[in-house]
């Protein structure tokens, strides 16, 4: 399973989302490869991804994709991230 965390610059915010998604997946006992990406590289980085994690502000910029898009409001709220990943994967 591949999950891509997206932000505008591909550093900083997407890194936080990546780390917290990995922690949430560990709690859910789900094996997945999580990478951080910027929007511009998404067509490549998310080509084989099942899930794209992003902010409400960036949803409209995500190019057409087969992946499920999961929108996270607070990047630091592990409970929110865990619940949304559980819903998307369940």
């Amino acid at each position, binding site marked *: 399973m591949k999950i891509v965390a997206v932000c505008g610059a591909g*550093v900083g915010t997407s890194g936080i989302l990546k780390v917290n998604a990995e922690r949430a997946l560990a709690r859910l006992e789900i094996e997945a490869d999580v990478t951080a990406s910027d929007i511009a590289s998404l067509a490549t980085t998310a080509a084989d991804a099942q899930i794209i994690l992003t902010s409400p*502000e960036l949803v409209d910029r995500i190019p057409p994709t087969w992946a499920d898009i999961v929108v996270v409001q607070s990047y*630091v*709220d592990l409970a929110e991230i865990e619940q949304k990943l559980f819903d998307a994967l369940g």
Partner: protein
Amino acid sequence: MPLPPLTPASIRLGAVVTDWRGAVRAAGDVLIAGGSVEPSYTQRMIDVIDEFGAYVVIAPGLALAHARPGDDVRADGLSLVTLAEPVSFGHAHNDPVSVVIGLAVTTADAHVTGIADLANAFNDPGLVPALSMATEPSAAIDLILQGTTRDVS
């Protein structure tokens, strides 16, 4: 090398700004003063928000101002600014912003865990108001360290 620690010199409390650009500039000014970045980096942080919107407001009341690595980043750097009056960044859920973290990194994968641990301290909804009340940088650092150690899992 770990993420540079927050020091009293990397913190500015009660900055008076009128809009989000001023808030980002304040965070950039601290990075510049610390020698981490050249002045053009501040404008690049503003450009990210102009281009992609307010997604940098990653939690209620907290913005993580940053841009890509570049020639104007001399060393990894971190700054923290509290605002005398909160400002709106235009985020649907997490406005208004009272605390801005400025981040500069020399490589894209640097320090993601350290940055996440720092950010996760802000999962405590009490931290932003507590920081807004802080009058001494050392007190602000203590508040964040308490939250950081509590959150590490």
